[in-house]
């Protein structure tokens, strides 16, 4: 395990002391604003490298670390922050409302996975927001200014910036708190603004900015150049042929294809995402889909979302630009979390209207996806659920009998899109063993993997394993009661981060993408006898009843 995380036994001991309450210490007589801001191994991400910042034209490139006493903030940084705050309050009603209307009822307090995992009071969503509110009150509404100490305001200092950096990077913008807030206050919105402000003075995270720079340059977060991108998928094609005897034939940058398929680059490059990619390729071959993959718009994800509004728009613009150039009819999107928050809630507004595309219609079933009539982009789970509903796939769920599954709703797809039934329908159709986790941990109440919103860095492992603890604890329960060994997700960051989380908390549980299971279950025309799944693990469900 990483050197940035305590041993499991140490963490268990720490948790033992906290139960049943969640706060890590006795805070009687203490005020949150007097608590120190402490950076230590495992609780901060390496800052953006100077060359990355220069490449992006971002301010204040320099070498620094969060543990430094002096962060080398640029001259006049206070004014930059104040002006930035003002400008965002002017542009976003959400931001202004969320700063103004909190009544501090505390309903959000124990809803945050980072609070549940760390017991740090400033990880209660209400206090996370108060970190900004206290400064906002000091600088803005005039009546509260008169009442200063009374209203809980404070001065903007370098120490406050450190505190913002620490705690707005212990929020994965998962929106779970906003489900419970009686005012509908969404901490994700506040965190997004805080990170924008911090970027203005060069307080940042390399694990976010390096992918942003890569994506701008090469088209994807991992910085894969076109030829390598093609090679990678071709090697997956070979693997598929070895396993199934079927040669699938994806095309790249092909003009005139009916559909452009875009998925996170993690599916092309990372383990276990590549098995999900193999699932997509098998599915498209199975139904004879006329599609193409772009090496230019080769990223579904969008780390711009974790940087600034403008950067999100800039990286997202490639999708429509490429769809227009290739002359496709509509876009099909792969499994990803924040990608779908961007596509569903932001893309059309930022980069639309996509009047050069057509309202998506499934070429196989004729189903019109009227819910995507304007954006013209369909989620693969919607697409596959429709295929299965119309009996267009030949599936043998027994091929997944070695996988006893549970399903992890990805935060963004759950709370920023509202897609709950389609992936479950697909999953139930492709496997025989599926058990839900506890009801307070799924669907709209789902827990983040603990590493979302660009916090999947190795050096952040301590906080990641704590933040992922609520998810892991829920998996542990179905592992004990139903012998679950397979955690199915529809998010590329989940696929990258949950394996580590499972190794730490729940050994014996592996992480799968939904379409990997689809790929396992598909009975392909002309295939050779299947004995192994896409990971080359033996399929156990192929007993006597096999044709």
């Amino acid at each position: 395990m990483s050197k940035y995380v305590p041993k499991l036994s140490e963490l268990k001991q720490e948790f033992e002391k906290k139960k049943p309450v969640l706060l890590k210490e006795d805070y009687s007589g203490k005020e949150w604003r007097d608590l120190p801001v402490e950076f230590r191994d495992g609780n901060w991400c390496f800052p953006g490298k100077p060359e990355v910042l220069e490449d992006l034209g971002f301010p204040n490139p320099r070498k620094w670390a969060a543990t430094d006493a002096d962060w080398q903030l640029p001259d006049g940084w206070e004014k930059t922050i104040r002006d930035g705050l003002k400008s965002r309050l002017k542009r976003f009603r959400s931001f202004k409302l969320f700063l103004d209307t909190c009544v501090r009822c505390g309903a959000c307090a124990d809803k945050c996975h980072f609070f549940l995992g760390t017991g740090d009071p400033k990880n209660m969503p209400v206090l996370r927001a108060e970190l900004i509110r206290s400064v906002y009150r000091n600088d803005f509404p005039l009546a509260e200014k008169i009442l200063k100490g009374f209203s809980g305001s404070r001065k903007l200092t370098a120490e406050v910036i450190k505190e913002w950096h620490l705690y707005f990077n212990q929020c994965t913008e998962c929106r779970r708190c906003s489900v419970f807030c009686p005012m509908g206050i969404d901490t994700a919105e506040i965190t997004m603004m805080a990170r924008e402000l911090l970027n203005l003075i060069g307080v940042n995270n390399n694990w976010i900015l390096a992918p942003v720079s890569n994506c701008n340059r090469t088209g994807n977060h991992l910085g894969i150049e076109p030829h390598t991108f093609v090679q990678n998928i071709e090697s997956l094609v070979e693997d598929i042929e070895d396993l199934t005897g079927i040669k699938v034939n994806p095309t790249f940058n092909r003009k005139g294809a009916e559909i452009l398929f875009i998925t996170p680059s993690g599916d092309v490059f990372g383990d276990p995402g590549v098995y999900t990619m193999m699932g997509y390729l098998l599915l498209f071959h199975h139904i004879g889909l006329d599609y193409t993959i772009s090496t230019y718009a080769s990223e579904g994800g969008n780390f711009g979302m974790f940087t600034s509004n403008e950067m999100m728009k800039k990286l997202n613009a490639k999708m429509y630009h490429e769809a227009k150039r290739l002359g496709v009819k509509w876009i099909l999107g792969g499994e990803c979390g924040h990608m779908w928050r961007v596509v569903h809630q932001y893309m059309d507004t930022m980069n639309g209207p996509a009047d050069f595309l057509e309202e998506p219609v499934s070429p196989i079933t004729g189903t019109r996806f009227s819910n995507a009539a304007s954006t013209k982009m369909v989620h693969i789970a919607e697409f596959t659920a429709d295929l299965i509903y119309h009996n267009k796939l030949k599936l043998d769920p027994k091929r997944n009998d070695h996988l006893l599954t549970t399903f992890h709703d990805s935060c963004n797809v759950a709370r920023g899109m509202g897609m709950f039934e389609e992936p479950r329908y697909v999953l139930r159709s492709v496997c025989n063993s599926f058990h839900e986790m506890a009801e307070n941990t799924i669907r709209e109440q789902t827990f983040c993997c603990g590493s979302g919103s660009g916090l999947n860095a190795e050096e952040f492992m301590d906080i990641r394993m704590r933040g992922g603890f609520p998810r892991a604890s829920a998996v542990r329960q179905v592992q004990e009661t139903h012998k679950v060994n397979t955690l199915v997700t529809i998010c590329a960051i989940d696929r990258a981060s949950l394996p580590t989380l499972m190794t730490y908390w729940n050994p014996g549980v592996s992480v799968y993408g939904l379409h990997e299971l689809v790929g396992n279950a598909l009975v392909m025309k002309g295939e050779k006898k299947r004995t192994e799944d896409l990971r080359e693990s033996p399929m156990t469900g192929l007993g006597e009843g096999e044709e």
Partner: protein
Amino acid sequence: MKKVFMPLLVIGILCLIPYVGVQYAGLGYLFAVIIPCVSLVILIAGVAWRIVNWLIRPVPFRIPTTCGQEKSLDWIRHDKLESPSYFWQAAARVLGEVLLFRSLFRNTKAELYAGPKLAYGSTKWLWLGGMVFHWSLLIIVLRHSKFFFSTVPPFADFLDNADRFFDITLPAFYMTDALVLAAISFLVVRRLRDMKLRLISLPTDFFPLFLILAIALAGMSMRYVTKINVLPVHDQILTLMDHSFVLSGEIGVIFYVHLFLVCVLAIYFPFSKLMHAGGIFLSPTRNLCNNSREKRHSNSWNPDIKFKSYAEYEDAYREKMKKAGLPVEKE
């Protein structure tokens, strides 16, 4: 606990002001007429200003928090309330928040057990306390309308009678009086007992609770303890409504305390967290439709951003692309 005693002290001083002012300085006119009128103007103008100040700010993106299945394929049940697709569905969602506190109804309590293991229990106390508090206040305010008309309007009469259902004391006891006291006590006690809440609470969280408590106690003592004659009060308000500012009859000093604290609340309201009463209607995570893929929503300040075009990309990678057999636009 400075943040508890400071607001208490302020309330104490606020109570003394009208007491001294009326009893010893003879400023009855100031406290009965001028201050109420001024505070009413501040309340109305202040609330209007705050709401307009929110409304002029754009809503650049559709960001509803989806707590239920979106409208998608025909055979999948759409959760119309938690993932609204049409205006009236979103309106119903907002009303559910305003009238029934639906999000708060979902509240859970997380506890840590050996393992370590997390368990979540349903906890409806805050929801119940909040509902009782807000609804009692609303009924109390509405039944006060009987003081503002020479003939009591039917709805106020109805509320008044319903509220006096348990007619066991003289004067008859209002249920809402007991309920609001219970609810305020609960809301204060939970802020003090739970360490998490003690940490997040500000003096401005205790102040309005204490202020409303003081108003309620002053009002109740008038009715049940000193049993002051309500007729002069009624007459006083009616003459005010007729715009003839003349003091009529003798009014107990406790009434002035009650009225002055109400005025303080009215002045405090627009500049404080109490504005959540208006903000809840505007919350973009609740009042927007989850139909952003179906209907385009435009952003008034959508910035013009230069992104890296395909042509630039091909220029950078043309040779590599050709080698990999990828089609290119320019040879």
